[in-house]
């Protein structure tokens, strides 16, 4: 019976440890402050720089750690008509998002500014049309398309016609800086 008591202590200690470690992965944040958009202003869009080369800054998008936010990103990706050009990641009118090539950078803040500012040859600017929070969610989802987001965070298949494999089943592809605008990203003639 002393043993039982000892077990009980272990149990409660474990429970306390677990509670304190309660994970953010599943938090349903309804009123969250998104990652600071201010960082976006400092993003470099080119590796070309005076002086010795410096490693690029890396921004953290907290939403990439949160399954609910990424799934919201996926919903917005559909509803805000990103699918209209990029389809379900495979691209068509716009460049593919599930491959490893990133024309304007793979960093979350670079994706953020791509969405907000728009890019030449067809990517519209969503400034004032989406608030920062939504853009960060979409950015998180976009990175999950090429497996940049942990598999237990990335969304699974949709209740749609089956397309590419679910984001959660996508192998991580190390981002490659794309040399130029791929065929698929050119303005339709």
């Amino acid at each position, binding site marked *: 019976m002393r043993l039982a008591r000892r077990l009980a202590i272990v149990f409660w200690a474990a429970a306390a440890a677990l509670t304190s470690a309660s994970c953010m992965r599943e938090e349903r944040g*309804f009123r969250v402050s998104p990652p600071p958009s201010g960082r976006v202003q400092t993003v470099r869009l080119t590796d070309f720089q005076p002086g010795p080369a410096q490693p690029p800054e890396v921004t953290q998008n907290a939403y990439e750690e949160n399954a609910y936010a990424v799934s919201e990103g996926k919903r917005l990706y559909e509803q805000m008509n990103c699918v209209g050009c990029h389809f379900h990641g495979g691209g068509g009118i716009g460049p593919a998002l599930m491959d490893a090539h990133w024309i304007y950078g793979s960093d979350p803040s670079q994706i953020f500014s791509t969405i907000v500012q728009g890019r030449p040859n067809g990517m519209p600017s969503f400034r004032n049309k989406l608030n920062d929070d*939504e853009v960060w969610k979409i950015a998180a989802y976009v990175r999950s398309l090429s497996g940049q987001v942990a598999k237990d965070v990335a969304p699974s298949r949709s209740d749609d016609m089956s397309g590419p494999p679910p984001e959660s089943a996508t192998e991580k592809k190390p981002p490659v800086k794309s040399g130029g605008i791929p065929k698929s990203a050119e303005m339709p003639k």
Partner: protein
Amino acid sequence: MPSQSALSPAGPQAGRIISLWWMMFYVTGAVFLIVMAFLMAALVRRRRPYGGAAADVPDVRPEPSGERRMSHVVLTGVALTVVILFVFLVRSYVTGRALDSLHEQDHLTVKVVGHQWWWEVSYDNATAAYTVTTANEIHIPVGRPVLFKLSSTDVIHSFWVPNLHGKTDLVPGHENVTWLKADREGVYRGQCAEFCGHQHAHMAFTVVVEPYEKFKAWYDAQLAAAQEPSTESQKQGRQVFLSSPCVMCHTVRGTDAGSRVGPDLTHVASRGTLAAGTLENTRGHLAGWVVDSQQIKPGNRMPPNNLEPADLQALLDYLQSLK
């Protein structure tokens, strides 16, 4: 507040159901009382003093004649049960048939699409131009059966107006139909009855039952495109609407706003409630909803909007002009 109760029917279907229920209530109530009476009688019949020795010698071989008598009573009870249940079955079947017997050649068809967490309502018409689309508020003429076609774009919801009829589910991939008919004018509240996520509790709608002329007038008003802004402030409000995230989700017919992600706002000011029956449609509620809907309905799909005070006022002016 509009009524939401199965106990005060406003149509033939809810009426039939509740009368079936009352019949069952009285019969089962009587059965319950009889069973309890037998139970009490059995308990007091040969009751021994409280706390009597538990090791009392059991009555191992009860008297056969008494056993036979009891088995007759039990058999009678079972037979009565069967009879009562059969009556219930027949009555239930007859009522069920009657519920489904509402048909009319020249009926109104309303399409209801469930969304997390609001109702898209459109009135079917062979001519697209005569199709009315609104949200969370259904007007129907009194005394006429109306066909509802129910579907869902996301998860399963359930369409339920307790004063008019039982519920029918909205299942993705299926189209369910139900008929409603209201005999009494009035405003009845309906609510989603199938658990559908965070805001299942705040997914209501109203059914306005009105005389045909009034309904027709409402319908014609709904057909029209949005009212042009008449004041400076309203004009500015429309500008705010079109240049802010609002335009990404909502439709205001007659403007460039044409997205169908959220409710159609063409005649939002004519509706009685906001946020799917959550708030009364007042200027203050509207302002609160636009600025921080997550405070009111946590988890809903409407993002917070950080508008300048002047822009917000203008936007409210504009939205309130959309009669």
